[in-house]
C-alpha cells in the first residue's frame, strides 16, 4: 500500500467533538499540576530577590542563614559554573544573578529548609551588600547613547555604528523601491505607537520538585511547556549528563509561551544537590510577575502610502523593542510579520532590540507580532478613514495570496487570508447597525507556525486497544486531537486510544510546546507512527493468508485483500490481529521521529464592536467575531477555544494590561489586582468562524491555530475605539484615563 502523505478528505473521527481524555481528571480535581506533586522528605525552597532595579552585588553573606536550625542548603550563583554558551549563560544568570542584579525581582540566592516558616526566616538572614546603579526601563530611553548600561558589550554583529550601548540587535527586511512607491501615493500617513509589556498571565505559578542524588542522578517534576528543553537547560547549568536527569512534566496550568524556559528548576536542583534531599519550589504570584517573562514593550513608527482608491503603494515600519536585561531576538519576528497580510511592491521594516532593567522576556503567543501588526493595522485604518474607504474592501484589495512575495521574503503557497476576509465581509456582524458612542474595528493577524523535533511511539495492545506515547504537555486538549488522529488513521474507535505524555527518559526528543506546533507536528508523527504499525499488521496478515504483503490493504480498521486477484479472505480487524500478535511475531508497534517541517502560515481577521462611555473613558466590548484559517480543524471545540482565548488575551492587552514601573525602577503592579486580565463580566460571547483551507504540508491538512488569534485584537479594538470616539489613540493599553484624556482634548 502507499504510505506517502496525502491530504485526506473524508474523516470519521477527525472533525468531531469528542470528550477529551483528561476531562474527568480535570473536572474532579484529580489532575496533578506543578504544585500538586510531592515526594517524601521534601524540603521547602525559597528564593531571595533583588529590591533594586539595577545594582552591583558586592557580597552575599549566607552564614547566618546556613546556621539556622532546619536550613538544609543555601545557594547563590557561586554554586553554579559559568556556561560557555552565551544563551545558556543568560538563562542561568536570570535564574541566579551573577555580579549584578539587573531588575527588580532578579533572583539572588535561595534556601532549602524543613518548612516554609524556617525558609522565610532564613531568607531574612541572608545579607546582600548592594551598590545601586542607574537604571532604565523604557525602551526609547534605553536606546539613547547616554543611557545607563544594563550589560556591557552585548551587541551582536548586526548592530550598526552609532547605536546606544543597550542596543543588542538590528534587523531589516523588505523589498522594492520605497521612494518611488511613496511617490505614487495619494495619501501618506506616518504615525508613532507604543505598547506596554504584558504578561502571559497563566493562572498556575511555576512550580517544581527536584531530587538530586549523590550519584549525580536526578529527577525533576515541573510545570512546563517542554520537559526536554528543561532537561537540556538544567543539565547544561548543573553540569550533568542529559541521560542522568529525568524531567517529568506535570499537568500545566497555562503557559502561552511563558513556560518555554526555566526560572526555578536549576535552583531547585542546585538546592537539592547541596541539601541531599528533594526540594520543592513554588513561585508566588508576585514573583511570577516580577521575575518571569513578560513580552516585549515597544515603540514604533509606521509610514504607509495609499492611492485614493485604496491601493497601498509603499509601507515602512521602524520597530524598537525591549526584552528586559538580556539580549532577545523577538523584534526579528515582529519585523517579518508586520506587513505579512499585504501584497506590497515596496516594503521595508527595521527592528532594534534594547536592553532594559526589566525581567528577561519570554515568548508570549506569536511573540513580536501583535504589537507590530497593531501599528500597521492602525495606520491602514486611519488611511481608510481619511480616504473614506471601506476598511475590509481595502484589505481585500491589498491582501496577500498564493504567489504573493511576502514582506519577509518567501513567496506564499496556499494561504487562507482572502477566504477569511471574504467570510468577514459576508458575515452579518460586519453589517449590523451601531448606536451612539459605538464603533467597529477590524484587523488582520498573522503567525508563521512551526513544526520541529517530535517523537511518537504507538503500541497496538493485545486486546485491540492503542497506546500513544508523546512528549508534549497538553495545554488545551492536545491529547484528544492526537488520539483522534491515531484513531482516524488506524480505523478504530476514538475510545480505543489513550494518549499519554511521557518523561524525557522514555521517548526521543520533543521540542517545546510552542509555535502552534503540537496538533500539526505531533499529529503528523502520530499518523506516521500509526502507518508504521499498519505496515507491520499488513505484513502479519500477508503471512497468515500466504499472499504478498503488497496484496494486503488497510481499510476501515482492518486488513483486506487488495482485490479479487489477491485472494478471497475475510478481513482481519486490528483487534483480530492484535489478539494473535504473540503467535505472529510478537508485539506490534509503530513509531516516528521527525523534525517536522511544512507547518504552513496562519491568518485571521477579527471584528470588534465597542461602546465607549465618553464621560469616563470606559470601553465595553459589545460584540466580537474571529475568522481564522485553521487548515483541517481536528477538534473544532478546541480550535474555537484557541481562537476565543487568544482574542480575550488580545482584548486585555488592548484595554488594560500593562507592566507599570515606578521612577525607582520597581514593578508597581505585581498581582492580579492591578495587572488587569479580563474577567468574565468584561467580555461578550466571542463568536468564531473556522475556515478550513488544507495545509499541504500535513497528511490531514492541519495548520497550527494557537498563536494567530492574539494578534488582531490590539488593532481591532483600537480601530473600534477610534471610530467610536472620533479620535485615535496611538498607545496601548487604552486604559480609561487615556481614552478620557483623548475625548476631552477633542472637545
Amino acid at each position: 500500500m502507499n504510505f506517502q502523505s496525502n491530504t485526506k478528505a473524508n474523516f470519521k473521527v477527525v472533525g468531531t467533538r469528542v470528550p477529551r481524555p483528561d476531562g474527568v481528571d480535570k473536572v474532579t480535581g484529580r489532575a496533578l499540576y506543578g504544585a500538586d506533586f510531592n515526594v517524601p522528605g521534601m524540603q521547602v525552597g525559597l528564593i531571595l530577590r533583588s529590591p533594586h532595579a539595577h545594582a552591583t552585588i558586592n557580597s552575599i553573606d549566607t552564614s547566618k542563614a546556613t546556621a539556622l536550625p532546619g536550613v538544609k542548603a543555601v545557594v547563590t550563583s557561586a554554586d553554579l559554573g559559568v556556561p560557555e554558551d552565551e544563551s545558556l549563560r543568560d538563562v542561568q544568570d536570570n535564574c541566579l544573578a551573577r555580579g549584578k542584579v539587573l531588575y527588580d525581582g532578579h533572583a539572588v540566592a535561595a534556601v532549602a529548609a524543613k518548612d516554609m516558616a524556617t525558609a522565610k526566616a532564613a531568607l531574612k538572614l541572608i545579607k546582600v551588600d548592594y551598590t545601586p546603579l542607574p537604571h532604565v526601563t523604557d525602551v526609547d530611553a534605553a536606546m539613547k547613547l547616554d543611557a545607563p548600561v544594563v550589560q556591557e558589550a552585548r551587541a551582536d554583529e548586526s548592530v550598526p555604528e552609532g547605536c546606544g550601548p543597550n542596543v543588542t540587535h538590528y534587523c531589516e527586511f523588505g523589498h522594492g523601491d520605497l521612494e518611488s512607491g511613496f511617490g505614487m501615493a495619494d495619501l501618506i500617513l506616518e504615525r508613532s505607537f507604543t505598547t506596554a509589556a504584558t504578561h502571559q498571565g497563566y493562572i498556575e505559578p511555576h512550580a517544581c520538585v527536584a531530587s538530586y542524588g549523590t550519584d549525580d542522578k536526578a529527577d525533576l517534576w515541573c510545570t512546563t511547556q517542554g520537559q526536554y528543553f528543561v532537561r537540556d537547560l538544567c543539565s547544561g547549568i548543573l553540569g550533568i549528563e542529559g541521560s542522568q536527569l529525568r524531567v517529568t512534566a506535570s499537568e500545566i496550568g497555562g503557559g502561552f509561551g511563558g513556560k518555554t524556559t526555566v526560572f526555578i528548576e536549576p535552583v531547585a536542583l542546585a538546592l537539592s544537590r547541596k541539601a541531599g534531599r528533594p526540594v520543592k519550589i513554588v513561585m508566588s504570584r508576585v514573583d511570577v510577575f516580577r521575575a518571569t517573562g513578560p513580552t516585549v514593550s515597544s515603540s514604533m513608527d509606521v509610514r504607509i502610502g495609499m492611492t485614493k482608491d485604496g491601493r497601498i503603494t509603499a509601507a515602512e515600519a521602524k520597530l524598537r523593542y525591549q526584552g528586559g536585561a538580556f539580549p532577545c531576538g523577538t523584534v526579528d519576528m515582529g519585523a517579518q510579520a508586520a506587513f505579512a497580510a499585504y501584497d506590497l511592491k515596496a516594503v521595508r521594516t527595521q527592528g532594534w532590540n534594547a536592553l532594559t532593567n526589566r525581567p528577561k522576556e519570554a515568548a508570549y503567543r506569536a511573540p513580536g507580532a501583535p504589537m507590530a501588526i497593531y501599528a500597521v493595522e492602525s495606520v491602514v485604518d486611519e488611511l481608510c478613514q481619511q480616504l473614506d474607504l471601506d476598511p475590509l474592501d481595502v484589505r481585500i484589495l491589498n491582501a496577500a495570496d498564493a504567489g504573493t512575495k511576502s514582506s519577509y521574503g518567501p513567496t506564499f503557497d496556499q494561504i487562507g487570508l482572502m477566504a477569511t476576509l471574504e467570510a468577514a465581509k459576508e458575515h452579518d456582524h460586519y453589517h449590523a447597525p451601531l448606536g451612539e458612542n459605538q464603533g467597529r474595528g477590524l484587523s488582520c493577524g498573522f503567525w508563521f507556525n512551526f513544526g520541529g523535533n517530535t517523537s511518537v511511539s504507538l503500541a497496538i495492545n493485545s486486546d485491540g486497544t492503542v497506546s500513544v506515547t508523546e512528549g508534549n504537555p497538553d495545554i488545551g486538549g492536545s491529547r484528544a486531537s492526537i488520539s483522534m488522529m491515531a484513531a482516524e488513521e488506524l480505523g478504530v474507535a476514538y475510545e480505543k486510544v489513550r494518549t499519554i505524555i511521557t518523561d524525557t527518559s522514555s521517548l526521543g526528543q520533543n521540542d517545546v510546546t510552542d509555535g502552534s506546533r503540537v496538533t500539526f507536528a505531533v499529529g503528523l508523527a502520530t499518523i506516521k507512527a500509526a502507518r508504521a504499525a499498519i505496515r507491520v499488521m499488513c505484513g502479519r496478515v500477508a503471512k497468515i493468508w500466504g499472499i504478498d504483503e503488497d496484496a494486503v490493504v488497510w481499510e476501515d480498521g482492518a486488513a483486506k485483500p487488495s482485490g479479487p486477484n489477491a485472494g478471497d479472505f475475510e478481513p482481519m480487524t486490528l483487534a483480530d490481529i492484535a489478539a494473535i500478535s504473540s503467535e505472529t511475531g510478537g508485539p506490534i508497534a509503530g513509531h516516528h521521529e521527525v523534525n517536522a517541517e511544512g507547518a504552513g502560515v496562519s491568518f485571521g481577521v477579527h471584528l470588534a464592536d465597542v461602546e465607549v462611555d465618553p464621560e469616563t473613558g470606559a470601553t465595553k466590548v459589545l460584540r466580537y467575531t474571529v475568522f481564522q484559517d485553521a487548515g483541517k480543524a481536528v477538534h473544532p471545540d478546541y480550535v474555537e477555544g484557541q481562537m476565543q482565548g487568544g482574542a480575550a488575551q488580545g482584548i486585555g492587552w488592548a484595554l488594560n494590561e500593562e507592566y507599570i514601573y515606578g521612577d525607582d525602577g520597581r514593578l508597581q503592579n505585581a498581582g492580579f489586582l492591578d495587572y488587569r486580565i479580563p474577567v468574565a463580566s468584561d467580555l461578550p460571547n466571542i463568536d468564531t468562524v473556522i475556515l478550513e483551507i488544507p495545509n499541504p504540508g500535513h497528511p490531514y491538512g492541519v495548520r497550527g491555530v494557537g498563536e494567530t488569534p492574539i494578534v488582531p485584537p490590539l488593532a481591532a479594538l483600537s480601530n473600534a475605539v477610534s471610530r467610536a470616539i472620533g479620535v485615535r489613540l496611538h498607545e496601548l493599553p487604552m486604559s480609561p484615563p487615556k481614552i478620557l484624556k483623548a475625548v476631552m482634548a477633542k472637545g
Partner: protein
Amino acid sequence: MVSVKLWGSLRDLADGQETVEVEASNFKELLDALAAKYPALKPQIDRGVSLAVDGLVYRNSWFTEIKPDSEVVLMPYMKGG
C-alpha cells in the same frame, strides 16, 4: 547554483547584495557555502537561521533538498509561544 535572498540587515555582511549565489543542493551545503563565501554571515548562521524553500519555512533541516530553480530565502531562527 542557487540564488539565496538575504534579509536586509545581512546584506551589509555580504558585500551589500540582496541575493547571493552559492553552489548547494541542500540546506546544510547552503549554510556551509554561505559561511565560506561570506564569513561575516557566520555569527548569524551559528546563532541559527531558518530557510524558506519555495514558500515553506524550515527551521534547521540539513538535508532539505534545494533545486537550482527553488526560491530560497534566509530567515532568522524563529521561536513561538
